[in-house]
């Protein structure tokens, strides 16, 4: 990481100065120290906020706010710091580093680190995770998100059939109390105004029999969260209709839209699998005499057209197929462990699924080469010093 000099001997150009800063060891150290502070803070915040909320606040964000004497000071979030680290790595660790035999190991390591950061970015941007839960003999061809929600607007199209309009939670998941969001689309004959969104709540009826939502802190265990919202439906020429939606509701809210019975519901986001999966058998074993799990395993069959392909999924032994990974996640009902059990498989679709493994190989080779070289030099020096 050398200093940029102007060829004419004058002061370095603006670009040169930027490169100097971006590639300097000082920048590296500052970023790493910020990352350390952030990791430390974010870890303890989990005690108070829970894993998911702390992760969103500190690790998925560009900035987070720290309050000092009633002043709100923005601090860099992990996302921003990792982007800066990648820039620093490219500028200093790849472009500006002296490329000699002595730095070969470091160069390889830096490439590995960049690959790892890229894997993280791809995963962050393009992956999704959810679950399927089924009893032996049942078939599933969709999976449900752990945390993300969506609004389902069902339009009647005759003969009892409906057309679904899906509204993802991108527009409302980060709403604060007092905020409003409006769902409007040329295809929709109405506007849906979200007056309040609760990532986790419990529906309750008050003394007058009115349904209301009691907000609760977001829980890490996805099954513990019920998302809910208070909405207003505005159809032109009609009086506003007010409703309450929540995930897990058995019957969606039915509204009158110009004489047509539309239904509006809130559910966990559902994704299609490119094939179906049938659970053949679920195995749960405990170590003898104690309630300590020894084996959880699901034998499943992948069904696609005429093709049937068997897989054994156990802890640490996921099924990987066409960019999807199915791993053993849970079982139940836990209060009836000797009865008929369902198996929950986690489904993740992640284009960079295996990249960290390859990055790890690259980094290991780079660091090992560098260490070996340093060790050889050290031993040589010591031997020389002793014989001198």
């Amino acid at each position, binding site marked *: 990481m050398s200093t940029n000099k102007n060829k004419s001997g004058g002061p370095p150009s603006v670009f040169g100065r930027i490169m100097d800063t971006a590639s300097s060891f000082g920048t590296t150290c500052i970023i790493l120290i910020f990352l350390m502070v952030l990791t430390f803070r974010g870890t303890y915040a989990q005690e108070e906020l829970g894993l998911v909320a702390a992760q969103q606040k500190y690790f998925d964000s560009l900035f987070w706010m720290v309050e000092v004497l009633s002043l709100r000071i923005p601090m860099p979030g992990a996302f921003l710091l990792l982007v800066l680290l990648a820039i620093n790595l490219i500028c200093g660790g790849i472009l500006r580093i002296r490329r000699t035999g002595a730095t070969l190991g470091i160069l390889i390591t830096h490439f590995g680190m960049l690959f790892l950061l890229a894997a993280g970015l791809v995963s962050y941007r393009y992956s999704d995770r959810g679950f399927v839960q089924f009893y032996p003999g049942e078939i599933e061809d969709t999976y449900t998100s752990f945390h993300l929600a969506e609004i389902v607007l069902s339009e009647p199209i005759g003969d009892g059939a409906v057309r679904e309009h899906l509204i993802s939670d991108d527009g409302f998941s980060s709403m604060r109390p007092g905020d409003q969001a409006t769902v409007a689309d040329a295809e929709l004959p109405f506007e849906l105004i979200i007056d309040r969104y609760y990532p986790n709540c419990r529906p309750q009826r008050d003394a007058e029999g009115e349904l209301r939502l009691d907000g609760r802190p977001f829980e890490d265990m996805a099954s513990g969260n019920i998302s809910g919202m208070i909405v207003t439906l505005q159809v032109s020429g009609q009086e506003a209709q007010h409703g309450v939606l929540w995930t897990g509701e058995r019957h969606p809210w039915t509204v009158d839209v110009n004489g047509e019975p539309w239904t509006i519901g809130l559910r966990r986001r559902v994704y299609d699998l490119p094939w179906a999966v049938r659970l053949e058998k679920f195995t749960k074993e405990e170590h003898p005499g104690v309630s300590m799990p020894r084996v959880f395993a699901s034998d499943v069959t992948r069904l696609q057209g005429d093709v049937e392909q068997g897989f054994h999924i156990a*802890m640490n032994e996921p099924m990987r197929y066409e960019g999807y990974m199915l791993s053993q996640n849970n079982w139940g009902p836990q209060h009836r462990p000797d009865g008929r059990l369902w198996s929950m498989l986690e489904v993740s679709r992640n284009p960079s699924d295996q990249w960290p493994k390859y990055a790890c190989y690259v980094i290991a080779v780079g660091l090992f080469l560098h260490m070996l070289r340093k060790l050889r030099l050290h031993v040589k020096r010591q031997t020389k010093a002793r014989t001198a």
Partner: protein
Amino acid sequence: MKLSIRFVLSLMFIGVFAAAHVQASETDATRERMQPWPEETLRSAELIPVQEGGRVKPLGTLASFLLLRLNGKRSVETEWGERLTPTAWLLDCFFYPDQASDYRMVQVIDYRVLESIGLERRGSKRSDRYSLRQLQPGFERLRELGQTFSQRDSKVRNALETQVVNLSRVLPELLLVTSYLNFARVRHGVEGVPELEVLFPDDTEVSNVQILEKFEELRANLGNGTIQASPGLLEAFGEISRSMDYSHYISLLPPTDPAEEEYLSPSDVMGRTMQLGVRDAEQLETLRSFEKLFDQRDDLAALGAGIQELQGELAARADARGEFKKVEEEVAFYQRDWFFRSLLAFIAAFLASVAGFLMPRSKLVYGTAWGLALLGEGLLVAGIVIRCLLRDRPPVTTPYEAILFIVSVAVLICLFVEYTRRNTLALGFAALTGTLGMFLSLWNETMEGVDTMQPLVAVLDSNFWLSIHVTSITLGYCAGVLAALVAHLYIFGKLFGFKRGNKKYYADLSRMIYGVLCFGLLFSVVGTILGGVWANDSWGRFWGWDPKENGALMLCLGYLVIMHGRMGGYLREHGVAVGAVGVGLIVMWAFWGVNLIGVGLHSYGFTETKRMATQVYYATEGGVVLLGILAWYVDRMRSGRALPG
């Protein structure tokens, strides 16, 4: 889960059975066993296979850890000066419960625990040992307080409350072992009990097992429940039921059905016979052997021979299931006491190294230090390898094993450095690391007081990932600890002016710290990423910002800050040393500290006993970092150099 069930049961036992012991407390203690247990009897008893905590182990191991929980050490001193091994103590509990109830072997760390349960301390010591009989009047209060305090979050419980909870958890175990063979000592008079008179016309009294052996006939005679049983028979049934409450504690009867995995306790066998109508003649015959043993307790030689015979029978049954070989190997492992011997060798090596500093030209002293350090390392590595073979596992599956592994690698690194540098310094560090590390492992084992060879939960049950991820990350921790240790010598040396002016000495130390940090970086980074790859296979995501993952990340970041700070010229010799102490702090946080936060998926290895030790470590090492900065300042002032800025 298991622990909490056991705890609830334990609390129930304190309440229900305290009354049963009141009478015993009112009688004077007597010495029932007048001679020591014969060696061969102890050896046999130790080899009795039992199933506990999900695995088959020797009775000796069970006794050893139970004693550790109760007494804080693996021996008991009797009033008459006899020193009992764990197995000898357990046999006393089984066959001479009145005598065992008088052994002062329940460690009460703070006398205020006694006061809180309405008892007075013995003498003026803060910490002392008490007998079961001495503690018995406080059982009821202990049960109440234990229940109350255990419902509080462990983070807000004070030390005294924690001790009350701990005592309320371990004391019931002592109650259970001293009453374990109650089923074998009870006899029922036949006369006046018409149902028994019909079945046992030639006997005046019968045992529990005799009744159970004829239970089907007895039930048939009672018209399968349609005829009212006599009061005498009802009383006998009550007695059997009560003895079942105690005899569930240890499962030492290998199942006769090869398809079954769970060993049975006497309580299970009696319960199956009475409640399920399943009469297992072989198991009942074994219970009969216990009754015969109890009858022989006045003749120690005969009792010993009986125990040996019973052990032979149980061992043969376990062997037929392929479960006895490991039991024998485990007994041999503990008898050889590899780790304690290793500790002794390291202490001796450390003393020899100190002598080496005082006599730098003595090849004999230097050679002796080398030999002893190698001996300590050899014993430690041998112990680790044997544990791996016993468990069919890689060396790092529990925090206890991690300590052993870290120590062995740290010593090995120091010995390698000594081999290349030959300046006695690294040799001294090898011995010091070995000594401190082995003390730490002993402390950890004593504090936890639980079997260190427990089976693994499903998610950890992968020898592949344990071998590559846990081993690498542990090597990363190990390097951090070692670098921090060497950095202490650097900082305190500078602070107190040791070898002042000897730049080479400090440059050597600094190079050593840097080299170890480089080693640590390699294994921490690779280990952390491999952990993510494992998490991806287990939980479907590479990185989840879980506290344990964050701990590993912090360590990698710590290493990287020092490396880049040094390359950029921001940290020199002294800065690297102070940074290394910081890395040591991060290792402690990553290894134990994050477990105390109480959140996350890596919830195995949580322990309350380590909370205080961890906090003391943070405070001390934080102080060393400050001292390091002070030493830098002092060094600058001494050398007359200006401070930056």
